[in-house]
């Protein structure tokens, strides 16, 4: 089987009616089974990059794009959104707006996507149960999606994407509205999905989460990729603050310990382990 990748080469994007570009000369690649984190200050371009990678920009939100985006080596310029959505699943910040609002059970909500693809009914049912089980929320199948907690709704939204069986996932701040327990649920789910072979781009402000689940991290600043590399290196880079990014807690604690003269080897090792 070919290695699944998303590749962006020289990609720029301008929203309709905007005076300047929101993305400039972005080069990025996502490999099979990789979780690539995306950090940056507010309005730096994280959401825009997620929309461009997922294909929603410009297909749904309009605007102009340049550069080249390939999916598993294929140019996707001419692909309609419903074809792309079968290969790239896209999740957003607000779990409530990702629900269709026309279903009365979690099962039907997760089945919504496969139903839209006109798959055979048995296939729809099998994919739905598989998606629910992969995120360990099959016990919520009969619940009203509108009555779930934010974390549960975000997992239901994620299950709805998984039921489409995409090879890639683009998640824009999936834990933005979640409490620590909900954040852990989603983080654990992302790790399990990557272990199953999905390639995942996740934009987040929570660098602690990215430090735990990402193999690589990219920093975006003013629409450009300013830094990209192994997560441990990028998240410990002293320039992070210049880009409006808060370093993960272990890095902050390590620096505080160092400035206080408590550079103990055991402490350093413990912080590195998280």
């Amino acid at each position, binding site marked *: 089987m070919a290695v699944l990748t998303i590749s962006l080469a020289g990609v720029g994007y301008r929203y309709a009616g905007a005076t300047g570009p929101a993305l400039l000369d972005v080069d990025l690649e996502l490999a099979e089974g990789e979780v690539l984190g995306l950090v940056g200050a507010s309005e730096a371009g994280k959401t825009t990059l997620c*929309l461009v990678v*997922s294909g929603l920009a410009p*297909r*749904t*939100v309009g605007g102009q794009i340049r550069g080249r985006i390939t*999916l598993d080596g294929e140019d996707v310029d001419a692909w*309609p*959104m*419903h074809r792309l*959505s*079968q*290969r790239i*699943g*896209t*999740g*957003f910040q*607000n779990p409530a*707006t990702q*629900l*269709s*609002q*026309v*279903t*009365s*059970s979690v*099962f*039907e909500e997760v*089945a*919504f*996507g*496969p*139903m*839209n*693809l*006109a*798959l*055979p*009914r048995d296939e*729809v*049912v*099998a994919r739905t*149960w*598989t998606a629910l*089980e*992969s995120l360990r929320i099959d016990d919520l*199948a*009969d619940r009203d999606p*509108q009555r779930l907690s934010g974390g549960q709704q975000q997992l239901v*939204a994620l299950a*709805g*994407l*998984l039921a*489409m*069986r*995409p*090879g890639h996932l683009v998640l824009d701040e999936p834990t933005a509205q979640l409490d620590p327990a909900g954040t852990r649920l989603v983080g654990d789910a992302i790790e399990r*999905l990557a272990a*199953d*072979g*999905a390639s995942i781009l996740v934009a987040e402000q929570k660098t602690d989460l990215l430090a735990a689940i990402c193999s690589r991290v990219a920093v975006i600043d003013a629409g450009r990729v300013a830094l990209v590399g192994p997560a441990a290196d990028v998240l410990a880079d002293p320039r992070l603050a210049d880009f409006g990014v808060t370093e993960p807690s272990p890095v902050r604690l390590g620096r505080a310990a160092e400035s206080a003269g408590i550079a103990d080897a055991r402490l350093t090792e413990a912080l590195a382990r998280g």
Partner: protein
Amino acid sequence: MAEGDRLTGSPTEVRGVPDFVGRPGPSAYHRLNPLTKATSATVTAIAAVAIGGLVGPIVLVTLAVIGPALAAGVLGRLVRTALLLALPIAISAFLVNLFFFPGAEQVLLRIGPITATAEGLGFALEILVRILAISGAVTLFYLTTRPADLTVDLERRGVSPRVAFVANASVQTVPAMVERAGQITAAQRARGLDTEGSVWRRVRGVVPIVGPVILGAIAEVEERTMALEARGFTRPGRRTLLWAPPDSSAQALFRWALLLGLVALIAARIAGWPS
């Protein structure tokens, strides 16, 4: 396996469509096909207007609204909801006709320059009964039919999934906006907004709530659109349905009988059938 298919897997055990999907309603009336109930509501509403006099609409409402509501166990809720919907316009129409009916001669009551007349009272009661009949018919349908049931049935009959979705989502939006308004009201109260007291203070209290409710709903539209796109909603053609409300030839015949009966009624009225 489709190109790029990942996370294939299979469920740990073979499970079919769970029985809570398309769960049948609690009464025989609930379990009627949604199109049958929609046809009944529509024909009742139109017939209440077409039938002349006072007795006809009352008999119609008794047979087509109150009887089924009793059988379905929703009579209490129906009366409360139908009155809530109809009373503002019903009261206005009643008073206007009672006091300002043109050409009336039998005076019942005089209040200053305006007079309540017997002819006005008769017409006002006829209007009142018709408004309540329409409200009752629509409310009975709403109380006994899940929106998803109707849209699935329409899709099964060939209506575009996009049209069916818009119809369903429009109905579901109302309770969602009511809930959002409640949340915004609570937040505004915590910031000192006064929403109690005189009518004028309550009206003033509504103003800072309306904007966030509407703007919030509009802001969500783009996110919802993208989320739907991401789940293949714009794919042309029909969707797979997990279930469909049962129908029968008897119900189909009944629907046709209602429609033909309505046409006959309207034709008779046009032809001058006495009221």
